[in-house]
């Protein structure tokens, strides 16, 4: 299957909600697995809120594309040049005292996707997120076991 769809949303908090609805509609229309929905929703929430916070973009284009088993989402805006992938990564192994909330979102965008690319072309920021669909997510990593009581 090879299909794509473009949706334009305003660069506002309402636009972030519209983007989430557009993603739901695309996932529903093509019967994509739940893991694709939540991964892209979490990533898109971060990317759109970043654009709204930093960008000064009045409109944001979302290009959803499904190419066989690869789902991609390209977010394009005319805001100031901003590459979120260059942001410093927070220390995700720090204890509670040293934890800062900033930067976690971009860590999630990077790690929830197979690939993320940023490009400045002309007056536009293009951020493309790519994920190959799996029937089910792999089991959660073993690292969590120490903190869980399975009773």
């Amino acid at each position, binding site marked *: 299957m090879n299909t794509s769809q473009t949706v334009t949303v305003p660069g506002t908090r309402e636009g972030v909600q519209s983007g989430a609805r557009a993603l739901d509609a695309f996932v529903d229309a093509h019967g994509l697995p739940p893991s694709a929905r939540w991964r892209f*929703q979490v990533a898109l929430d971060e990317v759109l809120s970043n654009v709204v916070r930093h960008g000064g973009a009045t409109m944001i284009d979302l290009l959803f594309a499904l190419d066989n088993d690869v789902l991609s989402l390209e977010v394009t805006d005319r805001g100031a040049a901003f590459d979120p992938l260059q942001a410093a990564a927070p220390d995700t192994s720090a204890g509670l005292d040293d934890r800062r909330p900033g930067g976690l979102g971009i860590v999630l965008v990077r790690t929830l996707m197979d690939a993320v690319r940023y490009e400045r072309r002309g007056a536009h920021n293009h951020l493309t997120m790519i994920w190959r669909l799996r029937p089910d997510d792999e089991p959660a990593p073993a690292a*969590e076991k120490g903190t869980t009581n399975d009773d």
Partner: protein
Amino acid sequence: MTIEEVRQRGAVVVAPVGRIDSTTSDRLEQHLVALAGAGERRVVVDFGGVEYISSAGLRVLLALAKRTRDGKGALALCRLGDSVRQVFDLAGFLPLFAVDATRDAAIARVAAV
């Protein structure tokens, strides 16, 4: 997202239902801050009804963990679904929280503190 709340064995159980994202996380934050203001010191957050959590929600939980520690309270999370657990894991959040499989276990944990 809606927020369900029940009291059991001296603990308050907060159960958000739906999506915790940049649109809804402020409401969860206000709810949790109000509980702290009301002197609730034993808190369980039940994720059984949560579809997913984004970084905006992680921010709320980090603030809750710090408030709980500073106020000498007790906090446990329970019933993390696959998506929530993976996001916690990727963000390095699992070591920061007491996580239980069931609501009963989480209540027992905070009641014992």
